[in-house]
């Protein structure tokens, strides 16, 4: 168990390092004079020269990568080219919004997807099931930015049920959370459906029925927990695509989160900030997958023998 954990930890760290290197090359190959971005269009050549020196912009990319990794090793993510704010600080002030939004979305869509998946599995093949399948496919096919705009217009602007945009505490996260949940309910309800159909066919469910357990108990107490086990893994792997949805939602609803920061810094050519947001999301994905992997062994002891 410990050996397994250490191996996983090692690979996670290596993945992050490789991600840092890959993204560093991508970001630093972007055309555009970084020194000019920092100093503004009217800066004198002397100032530009000074800035190039300070940020090692005259050195070859490989040397700059070395500087950057050295800096990372000290736990320093650098300073924004535009605001000179420390990147770590900028990320930390925006992380709570993004984390709260993502968590709310996950809870919301699981709360709806679970009963939906169970119901459609019980009545598999019926018109309820087929209808739910089409609805689920529709939810998969909605562009995040468009759905966000539509809900913002109809539910917030027209009906006034929610704040239209900006961040004024928890209320402001409700509609963005609903938007994100709507995008993922479809996929997860089908995932739970598929697993439930399989589980409902297994001997222990027949045994539970034979001993006279009520249908609700069979579905929700015996079958559902088993059907949810693989879903946990998928949830972990979906963090990246959830963050992609968060990026659009935050921008439409003008929420001060990581996604808005990421888009902003791309347009500002703010290299340290881009690197910071990418590394943060990669860290989130890797950490959550590590936790899921450990959780998984705890939920389902049968897996211990494998690997």
């Amino acid at each position, binding site marked *: 168990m410990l050996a397994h954990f250490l191996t996983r930890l090692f690979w996670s760290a290596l993945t992050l390092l*490789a991600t840092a290197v890959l993204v560093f090359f991508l970001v630093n190959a972007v055309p555009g004079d970084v020194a000019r971005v920092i100093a503004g269009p009217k800066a004198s050549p002397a100032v530009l020269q000074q800035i190039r020196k300070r940020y090692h912009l005259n050195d070859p990319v490989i040397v700059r990568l070395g500087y950057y990794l050295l800096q990372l090793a000290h736990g320093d993510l650098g300073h924004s080219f535009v605001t000179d704010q420390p990147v770590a600080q900028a990320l930390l002030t925006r992380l709570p919004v993004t984390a709260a939004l993502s968590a709310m979305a996950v809870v919301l869509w699981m709360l709806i997807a679970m009963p939906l998946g169970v119901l459609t599995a019980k009545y598999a093949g019926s018109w309820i099931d087929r209808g739910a399948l089409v609805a689920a496919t529709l939810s998969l096919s909605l562009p995040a*930015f468009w759905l966000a705009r539509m809900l913002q217009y109809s539910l917030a602007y027209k009906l006034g049920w929610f704040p239209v945009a900006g961040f004024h505490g928890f209320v402001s996260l409700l509609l963005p959370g609903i938007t994100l949940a709507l995008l993922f309910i479809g996929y997860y309800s089908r995932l739970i459906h*598929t697993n439930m159909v399989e589980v409902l066919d297994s001997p222990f469910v027949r045994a539970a029925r034979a001993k006279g357990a009520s249908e609700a108990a069979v579905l929700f107490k015996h079958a559902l927990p088993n059907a949810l086990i693989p879903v946990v893994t*998928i949830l972990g792997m979906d963090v*990246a695509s959830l963050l992609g949805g968060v990026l*659009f939602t935050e921008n439409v609803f003008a929420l001060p989160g990581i996604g808005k920061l990421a888009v902003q810094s791309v347009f500002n050519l703010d290299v340290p900030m881009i690197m910071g*947001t990418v590394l943060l999301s990669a860290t989130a994905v890797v950490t959550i997958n590590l936790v899921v992997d450990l959780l998984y062994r705890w939920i389902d002891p049968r897996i211990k023998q494998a690997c």
Partner: protein
Amino acid sequence: MAETIAAPVSNPVSERSPPAGRKQVDSALLNNRLVQVGAGIILILTLLAIAAPTLTRIGVLHEPIHQDTNGLDADGMPRPPSAHYLLGTDNLGRDVLSRVVYGARVSLTIGTAAMLTATLIGVTVGLVAGFYGGKLDLGLMRFTDMNLSLPAILLAIAFAGLMDGKVVHLHPAWLHWSFLDIRLQRGMVSVFLIIGFVCWPGMVRVIRGQVLSIRERDFVQAARALGASDARLISRHILPNVLPTVIVLAAMNTANTIMLEAGLGYLGIGVPPPAPTWGGMIADGQPYFIAAPLIVIAPGLAIVITVLAFNLLGQGLQEALDPKHHP
């Protein structure tokens, strides 16, 4: 390692024997309602996209990039729907309907080209990783995981900056795409390459999993014992057996690539204006949303319908090719 399922695409090969006859599969395909609806919508969209220039020539559709002098009202605001402009005009006085129709050309071309790129990479990596196993497998899968741990849109944004204006000279001379009669803008090739490079990792795990199980089956072992080369084993024995899965994944992947193209267009880093892209139309129309909601609603619906069609097709193909899970 807890390597269970990577995606809810199940394995149509390993557990089913004997394989369903070709006729059976064909009729299952044709009778599947989801396949019918999905393929039908895609067919209509494709015909519309191909016919668009002709429709313009015979005067049914407006020019998509023509800024009509009558296209804006006295206050310089977009015109509402009328007999002349069925869906109204946009903020530059261009016909919204014709931009939506021409947008299908951009979307479908990039979506398909990106899907082919992603499938080529994904299937190759999956085949090699699953077939050879060992250190190569480990390395390839770690690389795949690394790519999976970054949000596709974020990676695409980084790529979009990198490729701006450079990549056009890289593509081989025989790959002209001009037969599609779309003016090949600088952005077109780079956008589909970006999306292709971002969308492949999702396919790898599923393909690899299937290759792992097919590799051990008797007919492959027999061919190996008879002295078949690796290349022959992969191309003649393994590839045909993963092909159904590849087709399902490709259909679903097209939905992703089209969605990503719209997302890049929305962020302003897709195919550059004045080319009509659905994502770009939504972004440009946002400030006018309250006055002229159709500028935003129409291209959005176009995205939903197109992506939905590919998702339905993928879903239906999966059911038809894998009856085990869907009695």
